[in-house]
């Protein structure tokens, strides 16, 4: 009986937390529609989530494209199909690897920092101070981060796609002496608008997911150094897991 009670309690806790997370998201968006509109805060967050993640995303994209071309070339050569290397690299990146890997890198770099920043503000009563000044923390702190996440991640994914495809080109064409014309023309003929659109859709939802989870965890940090560490770890792990699970669902719908 104890076991069943424990399962029941965990299920209730989980349901409650999911409800709280949903209310947190809805309230944050509701506050965003009310003046004053905080464009400066959104620009600041775009700089933090987007611009400052550029380097790590480009680095990941280059090596992802390169390793895909390397693996793809040796696999396709066995079937005499090296000519479709470009399309293999491009489709893998545009449909899956671009959105997923860019989102994971943004989670690691910007998401964890978001949780830590908001968590420290919670512990040091800076969020309470906002409240006492009649400034809603959801409007001032959370809303701009959600908007910036939705804008920045698709842009980073677009960058990832381009850089990744060029990374594949460097290995597949320049290093392994593949056919340059075949590389680009196979991309042109194989990649459809649906693939690009699917990738963008994924990246928008990943951007929202990262900001949402990381802000929520930071906002509800327990008042201790250990609590902050736990919140940051939970934010990164939960975001990463949700990105992979949500990716599967979206892919199964989009295909």
């Amino acid at each position: 009986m104890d076991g069943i009670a424990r399962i029941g309690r965990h299920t209730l806790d989980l349901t409650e937390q999911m409800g709280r997370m949903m209310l947190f998201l809805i309230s944050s968006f509701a506050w965003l529609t009310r003046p004053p509109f905080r464009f400066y805060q959104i620009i600041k967050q775009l700089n933090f989530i987007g611009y400052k993640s550029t380097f790590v995303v480009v680095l990941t994209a280059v090596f992802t494209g390169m390793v895909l071309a390397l693996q793809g070339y040796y696999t396709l050569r066995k079937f005499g199909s090296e000519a479709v290397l470009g399309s293999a690299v491009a489709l893998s990146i545009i449909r899956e690897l671009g959105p997923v890997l860019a989102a994971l890198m943004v989670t690691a770099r910007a998401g964890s920092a978001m949780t830590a920043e908001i968590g420290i503000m919670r512990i040091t009563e800076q969020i309470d101070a906002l409240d006492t000044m009649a400034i809603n923390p959801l409007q001032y702190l959370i809303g701009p981060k959600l908007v910036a996440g939705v804008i920045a991640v698709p842009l980073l994914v677009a960058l990832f796609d381009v850089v990744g495809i060029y990374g594949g080109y460097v290995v597949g064409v320049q290093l392994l002496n593949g056919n340059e014309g075949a590389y680009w023309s196979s991309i042109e003929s194989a990649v459809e608008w649906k693939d690009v659109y699917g990738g963008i859709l994924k990246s928008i939802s990943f951007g929202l997911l990262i900001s949402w989870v990381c802000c929520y965890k930071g906002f509800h940090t327990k008042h201790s150094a250990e609590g902050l560490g736990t919140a940051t770890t939970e934010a990164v792990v939960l975001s990463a897991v949700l990105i992979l699970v949500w990716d599967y669902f979206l892919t199964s719908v989009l295909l």
Partner: protein
Amino acid sequence: MIKLVGVEKTLGGQPVLRGVNLTIPEGKLTTIIGGSGSGKSVLLKHMIGLMQPDRGEILIDGTDIAHLKGRALNEVRKKFAMLFQSAALFDSMTVFDNVAFPLREKLRLSGDSVSRRVNEKLAQVGLADMGHKFPAELSGGMRKRAGVARALVMEPEIILFDEPTTGLDPLMAKSIHDLIVAMQRQFKFTAVMVSHEIPEIFGISDWVAMLKKGRIAEMAPSSEFVKTTDEEIREFIFVGGPFMGQGQPAASL
């Protein structure tokens, strides 16, 4: 005026406030004392709506804020400012920007009008040349002073002080007390302070209230409070020896 009627609050299954009835006199400095963990800070947070009671009323100029939320609560909060234990300055901003923050965010002011008001407040709290520094570059006392400046800049009707001298040496604590008293006398705001500084608070407060076992056990003008006949309260306030009513221990006079 702040009036609490039958306020009850349980935290983590532990009753903290068990029916607090308290009226804070307008335009005076009232200090709430009590043992550690007696719920003084919890009580203060109820007054500004940072915590909501399980039962009871919290009346601010006649408006019950016990279950107010969102915009309605923010309207009432415009009357308030609060100095937190840690000062709660925004660590990503300079002292100047911290003090300017409510002016920019709430009054949408900018430029000279902000500079003038911020510099005036910084000068009043003795931080005239410190505006460019970040909170991490300041001492504990300076951070508290910056917090006082931020609290004063919107010229609120009520300021709550949550243990403003915690973590400060006696000299620095005295200077913060002097600053609070000077500002209160000058601007005539209603001040509610939670403090452990006995006997000092008897020398600076107009009224003193003691929170004991989740209720207000005694509230009286400062000079009357020390004449209490309640043995437990006497033991609490005279633990360091008898004193002469102005916050000075008798032994030192």
